[in-house]
Structures are given as structure tokens and as C-alpha cells.
């Protein structure tokens, strides 16, 4: 009689223990596997929600990518205009004489043993070269003295030679000119041009055409003291 109640109590204990065990498992698993235990209807609802959210995010991605492309192309065009500006700056530097230049052109050597060649003749030679489309001009004298010819260049007589932009030059003079070689050569041979003038004074002029001449004299650019750019609206 003693064994029976114990057996019954044992069975009750086992069942109640099982209940405790599964209840604890259930409570602990609750937060982990919400989706596993969800029913079909719930899952469909969750899926719908996720689909809508995914669509929203995809639209957002598309918008952001469009923004990115816009910004990238903006950076590209900025880069392009920067390069354009740099190229323009180099071209202007050649024009202003602040940078060395190279290209096809002529070298004109003027021998003036009498020393009678006036500055006026040299200056008119420069004018003739310019009218023939010279793009960069350099005048060199004896002893490697040289001057770049720019917009503000002046040529005056100076004792035994000439002074070009403050540099004293003596014969023989050597013009290095970049431009169309044939046109420049013809400019030198104008009637009353440099060749005529020098030959009359007993000197001799040699003109050499070349595919590649180098103008490496550089004009020291000084900021304008008086002239400032006029405001844009007044200019027109």
C-alpha cells in the first residue's frame, strides 16, 4: 500500500516538472523565433510590410544614385573647366611673354658692323613680324643678352646699341620668332623692310626657317599700377 501513492506522486512530479521545463523553454524561446511560430496570415502581413518597406528603400536608393550621378558629372564638368582654364592660362602666358614658347618659326640674324642701325629699324621689324602673325618674339644681342617682346615692349637707342625693355643689346641682333615661317620670311623682305634697311646701312641679314624654334626669354610681369579691370556692366 505504501508503494502506490509514491508511484502516483512520482508521476505527478514528473508531469509537473515537464510543465515547468516546457514553460521555461517557451518563455526563453519567445523573443528568438517570432517568425518560426508565426502563422501563415501573420507571415503574409509581415511579408507585405517588408515588401512595402523594400519598395520605399529601393526608391530611395534610386533617388540617391541619381543625386550621386549628378554630383559626379558636376565634378567632371568642374574638372573640365579647370583644365580649360589651365590651357587658357598657358596660352595667355605665352602671349604675355611670361612663359617660354616653342613652335615653328624663323631665326633672323642681323649683322650691323657699322653700328648704325637705329632702334626705329628694329622696332619696325617687330611691327612687320607682328603683322605677319608672329606669336612670340625674342630679341637677343651679343653676350647672350636677350629680351622678350611683349605688348608693352619699347625699343630706344642706347649708345652703341639699343635698349629693349631695360636690357641693353648690341649687334649682332638675333630675332627668334614663332609663327608661320613663310609669312614671317616674306615680312622681313618687305620693300623698306628690315632687310632693305640693314643692307642700305652696310649690314647683312640672314633669315633661317625652322620647324622648331625656342623662345625662352621671359618677360618679368609686373602688376599694373594704374590700370584696373573696368567693371563688367560698364564695359559694354
Amino acid at each position: 500500500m505504501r508503494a502506490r501513492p509514491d508511484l502516483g506522486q512520482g508521476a505527478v512530479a514528473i508531469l509537473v516538472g515537464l510543465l515547468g521545463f516546457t514553460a521555461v523553454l517557451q518563455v526563453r524561446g519567445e523573443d528568438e523565433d517570432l517568425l518560426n511560430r508565426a502563422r501563415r496570415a501573420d507571415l503574409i502581413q509581415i511579408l507585405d510590410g517588408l515588401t512595402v518597406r523594400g519598395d520605399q528603400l529601393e526608391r530611395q536608393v534610386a533617388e540617391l544614385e541619381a543625386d550621386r550621378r549628378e554630383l559626379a558629372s558636376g565634378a567632371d564638368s568642374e574638372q573640365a573647366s579647370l583644365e580649360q582654364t589651365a590651357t587658357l592660362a598657358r596660352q595667355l602666358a605665352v602671349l604675355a611673354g611670361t612663359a617660354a614658347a616653342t613652335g615653328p618659326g624663323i631665326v633672323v640674324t642681323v649683322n650691323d658692323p657699322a653700328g648704325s642701325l637705329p632702334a626705329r629699324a628694329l622696332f619696325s621689324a617687330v611691327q612687320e613680324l607682328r603683322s605677319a602673325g608672329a606669336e612670340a618674339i625674342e630679341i637677343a644681342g651679343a653676350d647672350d643678352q636677350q629680351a622678350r617682346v611683349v605688348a608693352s615692349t619699347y625699343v630706344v637707342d642706347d649708345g652703341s646699341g639699343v635698349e629693349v625693355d631695360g636690357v641693353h643689346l648690341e649687334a649682332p641682333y638675333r630675332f627668334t620668332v614663332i609663327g608661320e615661317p613663310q609669312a614671317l620670311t616674306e615680312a622681313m623682305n618687305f620693300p623698306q623692310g628690315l632687310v632693305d634697311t640693314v643692307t642700305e646701312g652696310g649690314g647683312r641679314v640672314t633669315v633661317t626657317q625652322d620647324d622648331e624654334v625656342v623662345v625662352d626669354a621671359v618677360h618679368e610681369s609686373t602688376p599694373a599700377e594704374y590700370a584696373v579691370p573696368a567693371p563688367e556692366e560698364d564695359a559694354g
Partner: protein
Amino acid sequence: MIPALGLLLGIVAGLVFDVSVPLALQPYLPIAVVAALDAVFGGLRAVMDGVFDDKVFVVSFVANVLIAAFIVFLGDQLGVGAQLSTAVIVVLGIRIFTNVATIRRHLFRA
């Protein structure tokens, strides 16, 4: 005394061993737990009434759990699993409340 020990042991085992519930059983476990709770409260009430019987408790416990799980399984097969499990919970909840009310009357005479 022994059943209380068993409950304690079960809870401790559940806390110590990190057993994950098999996927196939996951929809039925919560229902089974509630059904078992119903049986336990019914047993407690029987103890209070002085008519507790081991055999009755064991049979009602197992039957409760199996029937509750079976009803939910049937509901899942019919496509009304969510509604049926709600119904089972409601019925079991009412039974638990009734049993607890009787226990309370025994304990507090009110």
C-alpha cells in the same frame, strides 16, 4: 511535497539546458503549456476539495495536453489555426480562472 520538488527541478532544468524547441512542435507548445496549467490548477483544486487522485490527475494532464495540441493541429490543417488556438486559450483560461476562484475560496474562506 514530491510534486513541488518536481516542478522546481523542471524549472531549473529549463533554465540550465538551452534546448531549442523542435520546429514542428513550436505552434503547439504554448497551447500545451496552457492546457497543462489548467490540469495543474484542477489538481490543486482537487487537493483543496480533498478528492485528489493521482490517476485522475495524470490522465487529465496528458489528455488536456494532447487534445489541446490536436485541436490546434486540426485548426492549422483547416486554415483556422490562429482562431482555434485563440478559442482554446480562452476556454482554458476560463477554466483556470474558475479553478483558481475555488482554490481562493478554500484558502481565504472568501
